[in-house]
Every structure is written in structure tokens, then in C-alpha cells.
């Protein structure tokens, strides 16, 4: 059982809505959908390389959740650790134009935004379940 030995890294991008969605989707996974079953890693700390994050992603399956098609989280994991076990691009779920809208404070979230979060979290959980099923 891999248990909490599956990593999830969101880009948490500050320039666009997709970054907010990616962040909240990973938090939803941690708190509601797969509590205690995933390890989330800070992307900047992962890239800085001094927190053990890179070693984690080398050893264990890691999923990237990116807010736009630049796919910074996915590229970072593949550059510094290993091939990702799966990746989610919020822009593919909600559309590129929507994903690139202005960044959003969590106090301004609407039901529509929360639906985007749910769809992104569900997609990430689907990848998570596929990884578990293969083991």
C-alpha cells in the first residue's frame, strides 16, 4: 500500500485563476477526498532542493497539478526528480482563456470557481486511484 507515499504538487500560480484553482484542488484532495493519503510538496522548496522534496519525488509517484499550459510544476518535477506519475492541466479542464483570467483571492470564490476546483480535484483523484490500482 502506497498510502501517503504519493506526492501532489500544485503550481499555485499567482498570476492567473488557474493557479488558484490548482492550489485549492490539491488542498481539497488533502482535506476531503484523500485525507492522510497524499503528501503535498511546496514547488519553490522542491526546486530549491533543500527540503527533501526532490528525494521524495524520485522515490515515490508524484502528480503535478498545473494552472496553465506552461506546466511549471510538471516540468520542474521532470527536471529535478523523475517522470511524473500523472499531470493535470487546469486549462484543459476549464479552458485556456478562463484559466488565464486574473488571479483570485479565496474570499472572492463563487460556486462556479468551486466547481472548477471540484473538477480539477476529481481528475487528480482519478490519477491517484490509477496509481494505487497498478501497485
Amino acid at each position, binding site marked *: 500500500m502506497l498510502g501517503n507515499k504519493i506526492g501532489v504538487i*500544485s*503550481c*499555485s*500560480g*499567482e*498570476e*492567473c485563476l488557474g*493557479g488558484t484553482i490548482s*492550489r*485549492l484542488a*490539491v*488542498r*481539497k484532495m488533502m*482535506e476531503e477526498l484523500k485525507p492522510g493519503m497524499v503528501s*503535498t510538496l*511546496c*514547488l*519553490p*522548496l522542491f*526546486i*530549491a532542493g*533543500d*527540503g527533501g522534496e526532490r528525494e521524495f519525488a524520485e522515490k515515490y509517484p508524484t502528480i503535478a497539478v498545473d494552472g496553465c499550459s*506552461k506546466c*511549471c*510544476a510538471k*516540468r*520542474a518535477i521532470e527536471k529535478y526528480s523523475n517522470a511524473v506519475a500523472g499531470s493535470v492541466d487546469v486549462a484543459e479542464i476549464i479552458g485556456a482563456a478562463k484559466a488565464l483570467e*486574473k*488571479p483570485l*483571492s*479565496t*474570499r472572492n470564490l463563487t460556486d462556479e470557481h468551486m466547481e472548477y476546483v471540484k473538477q480539477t480535484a476529481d481528475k487528480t483523484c482519478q490519477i491517484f486511484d490509477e496509481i494505487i490500482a497498478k501497485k
Partner: protein
Amino acid sequence: MSKIKVIPCSGIGKVFGLLARESVLMVTSEKCPNDTETLCLAHVVTGDDEVVGKIKGETCITMDGCAKYCAKKSVEETGGIVVKSHKVPDFMKAHRGEEHGSGTALTDDGWKYAEELAEILVEDVKEIKAEVN
């Protein structure tokens, strides 16, 4: 002068990252939208030519959530000039005992603290602009 870059760490594990993120969004979206902008730290750390072009030699302020100083270090490594650097826990003394929320959502006390952090950033912006003028 071009807009001052204000960049938070947005760390995902604890409330400090969200406090950093929300305080910066208050500044760049509401309090000083004409003088400031933010950049994706995730993009900054990739070192892509596109983002290096945006940040190299530019005046930057960073707000980090912990002592790892990921935002400050990453901006500096990418060529940004960090003229002011802060860490969320540095201002906690007056807020001991308060519950600020989690990495997902802030409480009322958390929003008040984020507002206070945002005002610190606004003062930085005023100071930087005054030095330029």
C-alpha cells in the same frame, strides 16, 4: 519606473503561505494596482527566458511564509533586485493565540492579519516610490 514586482511564496502546507499569497493579492489587485504586479513564483523558479526577461534587474518585494525564504532566494537567483523582504511569522508577536486558518482558507483573524501584512507592503511601495522620485 516599471511596476514593482511583489511576489509571495504561496506555500501550500500551512496557513503562512496563504497569508503571504492573500496579502500580496490585496496589494497588486486592490491597494496599489497601478504601481505593483505579481509574478508566478512557480514560473520564476523554472528560470524560463520569458520570466527572466520580466524580472531581471527589476525592483521586487517578497513575502515568504517560512524561514526557507523560497520567494526571496528564487527571485534573487533569477536576477530580480529584492529591495524589501518579509516573512509572515515575523509579525506574529501581536497576534499570539489567534487562529488564522489553514492553507485552504483564512479565518476572520487571518484576514485581519493578511490586511496588516498588506499594509506593510503598501508602505514599502510608498517608500520605494519616494526614493525614485
